[in-house]
């Protein structure tokens, strides 16, 4: 079973535009993580945000977390063609130790 649900499932934008992906989850969490996956490759960790944090930045990435709404968003600013990939959110739950549960992902295409 999957804890997180990403929205939208697919997103197509022009280079230079911003891309926003959303993630909703069901149970209380210790942290929420975002990963990126290029076609045919393994997942690469992007950002980890803890349950007591509300916003985190890393380069062109901005992640927000709203635990009251059980939701998170990933914003990629000034997108590039190289940002084309699938993006997944994953949650670590309070009662499940280090269990890391993934959502279905958002497939982002950035057109040059």
């Amino acid at each position, binding site marked *: 079973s*999957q804890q*997180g649900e990403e929205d939208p499932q697919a997103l197509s934008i022009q280079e230079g535009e911003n891309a926003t992906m959303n993630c909703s989850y069901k149970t209380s969490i*210790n*942290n929420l*993580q975002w*990963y990126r996956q290029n076609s*045919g*490759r*393994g*997942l*690469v*960790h992007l950002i*980890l945000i*803890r349950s007591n944090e509300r916003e985190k930045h890393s380069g062109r990435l901005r992640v927000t977390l709203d635990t009251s709404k059980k939701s998170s968003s990933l914003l990629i600013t000034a997108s590039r063609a190289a940002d084309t990939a699938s993006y*997944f959110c*994953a949650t*670590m739950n309070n009662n*499940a*130790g*280090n*269990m*890391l*549960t*993934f*959502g*279905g*992902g958002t*497939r982002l295409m950035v057109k040059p």
Partner: protein
Amino acid sequence: EAGVVQSPRYKIIEKKQPVAFWCNPISGHNTLYWYLQNLGQGPELLIRYENEEAVDDSQLPKDRFSAERLKGVDSTLKIQPAELGDSAVYLCASSLGKNTEAFFGQGTRLTVV
């Protein structure tokens, strides 16, 4: 530092045959995960190890799947016998511990024909 290493990268087998995947996690990482990923979907957890102990294996189809993590380091995942529906990418990941990120290997793409 080497990342998570998986082998083989690709495997094609006939149904009913056995297959095994191997994973070498990052040195010092106590937590090891095996995930299954179908095309266009997110990874689904098969089993999680804390050192040599399997602590989450409720999603592992135990009639045909087995896993082990000897000495709390390398791990193998086995399917016997394989079915057509087992065709997928099998991902291994490791992490340092609680509330830390996971590092993934490149995965093994299994095709059962």
